[in-house]
């Protein structure tokens, strides 16, 4: 009996080792000449329909397959892509675009101006129900079509011939060339998209015009792209197969990076930050986003700006980024993030606008004293009589850690009590949007690289105005900003608006500016990213 057991065990061991031998190695495949790059930028996309997408990670995926009239280049500018030439009229309301002559879809058919007209009309069509349709706001009649007041054929875009596109805007727009690079503005093929809700599901119908085309979509597993032979710059594309491994599970991402199954990993977890920070694989890139907390300004005692300022001033932002998030983000001294340009594009909006409070370590004590004074003036000396309140956040370890740090600072420095209400994502978003909160976690990533993408949030009745803030002067300023594309007029107005929002009213308490921590193999060259959180691998190469 014993012998038999031993024999069985040996046999089992043999089988296991035999399997171990045939483990497929799918890492950087430079063998046989074809190059493969495997990356993680996010989980399974909700959709890869350019008109419906609004996620940054999915934009990364889509923009490798599609291309718009302009694109973000490695020297950090928006340059012509499918457009050969863009002429802007003197009133800045009409854009006449001439397409390149060598444009083809991934099935070999030519890209026509009418493909753009079709795609844009479809994006704003209420039947398409795109959550991102608002990105067409500057285009004439877009808002009316979304609200079902006009027909989609009245959208301000016309194809005068196969190569010419005439775009009419409702109002001058300072960042329209940037918008033209967004996924919703990509052209689509009416013959494959129309009437087929499943067109994104099959590589045969997912016909695209960018550097890559879809090869396989293995749901929840990977999105595999191969070089598009009809792309006009196909010679610049060095990597033959681009694999987006789809996951957002920290442990899975990290182990896949360590085993070499992927060569680019984002996001990486806070716990791992210390272990990787000093390695050459580690990159910290800025993202045009901000983390803050917001007050429900209609609720007592948070309807008093002194209370809001006190709760904001007492936060040790340096402690948060060093000890809690461990990502060493830049501490926030205003709402418009560092990295956005002012009138003079060599100067940053944030630098021109200055700091609304100091986040220097040496000034923390002074801030706390100021906070105590403000709280006393508001009628709560040493926190006496301050009602206990709830701080709402969604279930996430990172947000929970920030919440606990804030709770502790408010208690020890101001003597006020708060409890943390952790809510499931859908519940959290719903109650915050309805104003059912006192103080809540907040975050925002810009839609486009312009301060108005931040400050537009808090106009009266705005969809993202969770604090339910209302200030007619503020509304008028934003209104004026949106009616011109002249930065010498816009920027001073935007500064005035921020002065009201943060300097005077402290509607939200900015904490830190977002960044992304990435791991990338050091032999990958030519990768770049945009501050909007998009990654570009189409001109990357793997050096052996």
């Amino acid at each position, binding site marked *: 009996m014993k012998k038999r057991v031993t024999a069985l065990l040996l046999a089992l061991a043999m089988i*296991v080792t035999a399997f171990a031998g045939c483990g497929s190695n799918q890492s950087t495949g430079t063998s046989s000449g074809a190059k493969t790059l495997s990356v993680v930028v996010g989980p399974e996309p909700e*959709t890869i*329909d350019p008109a419906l997408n609004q996620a940054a990670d999915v934009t990364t995926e889509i923009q490798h397959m599609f291309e718009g009239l302009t694109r973000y280049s490695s020297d950090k500018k928006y340059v012509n892509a499918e457009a050969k030439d863009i002429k802007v009229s003197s009133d800045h309301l009409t854009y006449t675009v001439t397409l390149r002559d060598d444009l083809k879809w991934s099935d070999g058919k030519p890209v026509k101006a009418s493909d753009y007209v079709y795609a844009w009309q479809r994006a704003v069509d209420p039947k398409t129900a795109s959550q991102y349709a608002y990105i067409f706001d500057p285009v004439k009649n877009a808002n009316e079509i979304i*609200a079902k007041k006009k027909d989609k054929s009245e959208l301000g875009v016309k194809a005068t011939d196969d190569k010419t596109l005439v775009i009419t805007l409702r109002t001058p727009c300072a960042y329209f060339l940037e918008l033209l690079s967004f996924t919703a503005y990509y052209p689509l093929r009416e013959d494959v998209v129309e009437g087929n809700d499943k067109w994104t599901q099959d590589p045969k119908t997912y016909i695209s015009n960018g550097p890559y085309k879809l090869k396989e979509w293995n749901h929840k597993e990977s999105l595999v792209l191969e070089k598009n032979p009809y792309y006009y710059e196909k010679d610049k594309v060095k990597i033959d197969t681009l694999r987006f491994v789809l996951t957002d599970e920290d442990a899975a991402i990290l*182990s896949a990076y360590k*085993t070499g199954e992927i060569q680019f990993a984002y996001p990486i977890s806070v716990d791992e930050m210390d272990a990787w920070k000093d390695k050459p694989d580690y990159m910290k890139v800025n993202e045009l986003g901000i983390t803050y907390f917001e007050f429900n300004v209609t609720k007592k005692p948070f309807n008093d700006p002194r209370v809001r300022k006190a709760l904001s001033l007492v936060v040790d932002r340096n402690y948060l980024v060093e000890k809690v998030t461990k990502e060493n983000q830049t501490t926030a001294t205003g709402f418009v993030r560092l990295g956005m340009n002012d009138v003079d594009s060599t100067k940053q909006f944030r630098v021109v606008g200055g700091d609304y409070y100091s986040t220097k370590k040496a000034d923390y004590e002074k801030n706390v004293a100021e906070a105590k004074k403000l709280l006393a003036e508001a009628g709560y000396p040493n926190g006496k009589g301050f009602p206990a309140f709830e701080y709402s956040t969604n279930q996430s370890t990172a947000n929970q850690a920030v919440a606990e740090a804030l709770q502790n600072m408010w208690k020890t420095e101001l003597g006020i009590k708060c409890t943390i209400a952790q809510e499931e*994502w859908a519940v959290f978003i719903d109650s915050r949007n309805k104003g059912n909160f006192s103080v809540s976690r907040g975050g925002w990533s810009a839609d486009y690289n312009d301060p108005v993408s931040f400050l537009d949030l808090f106009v009266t009745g705005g969809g*993202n105005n969770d604090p339910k803030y209302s200030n007619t002067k503020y509304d008028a300023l934003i209104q004026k900003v949106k009616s011109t594309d002249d930065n010498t007029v816009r920027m001073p107005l935007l500064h005035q608006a921020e002065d009201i929002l943060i300097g005077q009213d402290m509607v939200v308490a900015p904490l830190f500016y977002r960044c992304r921590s990435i791991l990338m193999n050091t032999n990958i060259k030519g990768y770049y990213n945009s501050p909007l959180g998009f990654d570009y691998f189409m001109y990357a190469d793997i050096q052996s």
Partner: protein
Amino acid sequence: MANYVVKRVAYAFLTIFLISIITFALMNMIPGGPFLSEKAVSPETTQALKEKYGLDKSLPEQYISYMGKLLQGDLGLSLKQKGRTANDIIFSTFPVSASLGGISILVALILGITMGSVAALNRGKWGDSVLMVISTLGIAVPSFVVATALMVTFGVNLRLLPTMGLKTPLHYIMPVAALSFYPMAYITRLMRSSMLDALNQDYIRTAKAKGVSKVVMLFKHALRNAIIPVITYVGPLLAYTVTGSFVVETIFNIPGLGREFINCISGRDYPMVMSTTIFLAALLVFMNVLVDICYKLVDPRIKLK
């Protein structure tokens, strides 16, 4: 027997019907909705989305329309995975989960029954003690710990096994080990005690007295009786595998139904919530009917009423 089966199947359908009503009610009672995001969606767009997916109708209308389509085999459109039907999602992810779960259940049963029997036959000896330590460990340590420990050891440090997906037989080793560890341990303990019980029965003594060989005695007489509690456990084991697979599938990035099941609830993907719940409920209910019928086959003393 036939009567019994018909009755049980009828009850099964009633159970599933009740589950569908309860799920529909609960799902619509919890706050939040499918079209929420950090960036607010305009009321016009929300309305357009509701119309597109039929969520603008009254709840009873929605329920009846859903159930009507269900009877025709149409499980509805996913609200979150644009362009995919629930049929497509469930029938592409279920085989993955089923193969993972099925293999895990088999491994757990084979190893558990063997280890339990071996322990019982060697009661008090060192072999018994070793097996009991292993099984205690298996019951105490949750599957995500097992999964993570395996991944770190064999995937990251030793680099012997792949860590993502389920493409080759090699990919199965770690997820199966993680998923089957707990039920294997449980079955070992169950099997050990029922085997000990069986070995003390009069009919075993009679068999021994008659001079029946040890193998025949063990397999024909003792095992067949001792295995009944294990069969009873197969029902709950299925349920465990379905829910446990969520954790394991997430850690090893396996595109299975377990992950879908949880994600569609947090995403408020209503048709997917209904369809996965009904699908899994039907699976569990009918497997339990099957298990009950199996009793009869194993133990003729049991009367099915």
